[in-house]
């Protein structure tokens, strides 16, 4: 059987960088191909070339037996290739049906609303999408929105679906549902290219994996018989050991003590954290994680209870007073809460301490000291940029996160609240973040590690707590962890 898609010897250069350096990739109908690779390995470039968003420097693409060259995204779509981006291009104020009809020939100039709604319902049922054509997109979860994009592609007769990091914004149950949908699509004979850097999903759903590294195919393997360690090694070109949680300490004095804390969306809850301890807070996103993190950081008002940090009552303290007391915060929302994208790396590094030495003396900013400090932090935290004067928004997600971490850890905090600190990072950067957390613990600080990635929480924590419905469902030591119990807590059912 001829392949659905064949890409041969694809080369694409940006200046001196060979983003794609002779890549071969093919996909069959009724097959899910995992495209693995770290950030910057050339996955996105390869897919942009396939979708006609830019032309390759060399190489050929054959899709359904026809040569695709000098094509644009519209021609690619007409040929039967659909791209499901990480960021959806949907109109939130419109209904599912309206979004699907937008720009679609079959909908006619005078919209055939009823006919289209029927087709949406029928296809949605067949693929298990559970989409209501009259629902407003703005009311739907990110998972549902993604399904609209999938449905759009299927209704427009796409034969090959490219999904770019499709699970990065989804809660765990939605990930499972997405994988089920992909299996339905495979059963209907669609070809699927699944771009990701999450190994478990690849092992779960893909038939075959292609690993890219530095613009070349680093390896490929059928999933049956492949194991995590092999794939991870192929991706990064070195071994990535999961951070070993050795000390299992948490024997220091109590640093954080929360009792009866309540606020909008949370509480009342009790929590204590000792020096030299990492408390992992697991749970499905949207169960009060953001509310708890922001209440502790002083961005939201507590309506009841108390928060003590090293014996000082900071329940109603200002953000600045909390910082002085030794609290550091890594927000989940990197691009707008943690950083000012338009400001330089140096400015972002001094953002929270701009009134203190070395950044300021007697109320005046000390420019030279700031530059020196920024250069030192960039080196110490491996922030890769040409100079401290580069705007933070220009850096990759991993490097942006390193700025935040450098800023927060440089203040030698007694308590760190880290909310999804590895979100969207590739394995190398994730590893870096974890190492820093462990180093901070070794220095005697307390760390509250909030993440919806259970695996990460288990890898790093001394104790594991679960947040469900804005309250602590339960806490257990990492040593004697009971997965079934954790699952029950996460699903919000009382133990």
């Amino acid at each position, binding site marked *: 059987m001829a392949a659905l898609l064949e890409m041969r010897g694809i080369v694409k250069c940006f200046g001196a960088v060979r983003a794609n350096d002779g890549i071969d990739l093919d996909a069959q109908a009724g097959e899910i191909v995992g495209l693995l690779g770290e950030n910057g390995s050339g996955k996105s470039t390869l897919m942009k070339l396939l979708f006609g968003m830019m032309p390759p420097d060399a190489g050929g693409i054959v899709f359904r037996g026809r040569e695709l060259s000098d094509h644009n995204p519209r021609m690619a779509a007409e040929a039967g290739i659909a791209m499901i981006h990480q960021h959806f291009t949907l109109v939130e104020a*419109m209904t599912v049906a309206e*979004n699907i009809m937008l720009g679609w020939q079959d909908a*006619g*100039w005078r*919209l055939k*609303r009823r006919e289209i709604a029927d087709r949406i319902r029928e296809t949605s049922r067949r693929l298990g999408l559970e989409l209501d054509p009259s629902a407003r997109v703005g009311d739907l979860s990110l998972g549902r929105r993604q399904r609209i994009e999938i449905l759009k592609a299927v209704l427009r007769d796409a034969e090959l679906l490219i999904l770019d990091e499709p699970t990065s914004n989804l809660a765990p149950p939605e990930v499972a549902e997405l994988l089920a949908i992909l299996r339905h699509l495979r059963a209907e004979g669609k070809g699927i290219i699944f771009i990701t850097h999450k190994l478990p999903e690849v092992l779960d759903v893909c038939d075959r994996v292609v690993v890219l590294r530095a613009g070349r195919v680093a390896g490929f393997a059928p999933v049956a018989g492949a194991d995590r360690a092999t794939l991870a090694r192929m991706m990064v070109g070195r071994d990535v050991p999961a951070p070993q949680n050795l000390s299992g300490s948490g024997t220091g004095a109590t640093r954080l003590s929360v009792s009866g804390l309540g606020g909008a969306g949370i509480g009342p809850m009790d929590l204590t954290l000792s020096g030299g301890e990492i408390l992992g807070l697991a749970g499905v996103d949207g169960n009060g994680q953001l509310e708890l993190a922001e209440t502790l950081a002083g961005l939201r008002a507590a309506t009841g209870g108390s928060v003590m940090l090293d014996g000082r009552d900071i329940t109603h303290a200002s953000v600045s007073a909390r910082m002085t007391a030794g609290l550091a915060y890594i927000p989940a929302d990197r691009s707008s809460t943690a950083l000012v994208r338009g400001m330089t790396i140096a400015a972002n590094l001094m953002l929270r301490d701009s009134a203190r030495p070395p950044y300021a003396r007697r109320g005046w900013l000390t420019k030279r000291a700031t530059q020196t400090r920024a250069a030192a932090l960039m080196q110490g935290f491996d922030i890769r940029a040409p100079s401290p004067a580069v705007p933070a928004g220009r850096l990759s997600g991993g490097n942006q996160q390193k700025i935040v971490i450098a800023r927060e850890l440089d203040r030698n905090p007694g308590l760190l609240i880290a909310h999804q600190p590895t979100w969207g990072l590739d394995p190398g950067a994730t590893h870096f973040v974890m190492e820093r957390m462990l180093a901070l613990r070794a220095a005697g600080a307390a760390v509250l590690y909030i993440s919806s990635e259970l695996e990460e929480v288990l890898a790093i924590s001394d104790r594991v707590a679960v947040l469900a419905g804005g309250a602590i469902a339960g806490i257990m030591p990492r040593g004697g962890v009971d997965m079934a119990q954790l699952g029950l807590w996460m699903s919000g059912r009382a133990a």
Partner: protein
Amino acid sequence: MIDFLAASIRIATPLVFAALGGILSERAGVFAVGLEGMMLMGAFGAVIGAWASASDLLGLAMALAGGAAMGLAVAIVTVRYRADNMVTGLTVNILAAGLTTYLLHVLAGSSAIQVDPLGPWPIPGLSAIPVLGPLLFAHPPLTYLALLGCAGLSFLLYRTQTGLKLRAAGENPEAVFVAGSSPMRLRFTAIICGGAIAGLGGAVLSLQQVGTFTDGMTGGRGYLALASLIVGRWNPWGAAAACLVFGAAEAFELRLQTYGVPVSSYVVQMVPYLIALAVLAGLGRSTKLPAAIGKPL
């Protein structure tokens, strides 16, 4: 009472046109602050056209052209050159005020231009119905056209592919782009057509109601139309209803004046605008506001 309601409808007519034009522009994603200037150019074009050609139809064509010209100016500056919508709109309003005064002077010198106002077109049969007849079916032609305009714009916005794309351009232009159309072209077209329709609103004031053009004769009605379309939630019928409320307020004010109520007419004239302010404050920021409005492409 019937007189009062009929007067409300009459007074609301120019507002309805301007609001429809504004909806077109705002739904596509550009604030319609320039409605006042578009109306004024339309009012001017209508009278000059009708006066020069002795044809009402040519007058209306000139009103459309005048409003569209202002729309074109807004479109070029905001869409092509990505300028701020508010500042551009206000500038166009000032430009229209200056331009019409100047052109009027050049064309007519010091003498006033007079044309016959458009008379009522009673609809045969229907206008004879008691109560409803005089209320709904004995209006001048542009008033019927305003109603048709509401129906037409509703159909366009909610029932056609063009309307879908237009609304998407105001909500998420990237989605339009991905769907294979140019959001820039959509906004351009919408603003120019919106300007033409607002120009018809001006024509109602000058050609249908008084038969002459005077400096600054729109007197803030463009802004009132802007308020109406917000109150009406960017929906043609909703905006028309809001216009009717403002029309009624003005009709009421005219009554008060004729009855000789001892309140300064200037104070009474503020009533529709005060109502508009109160309603806008009461509604607050709307979730119906097109999400990408005012954001350049």
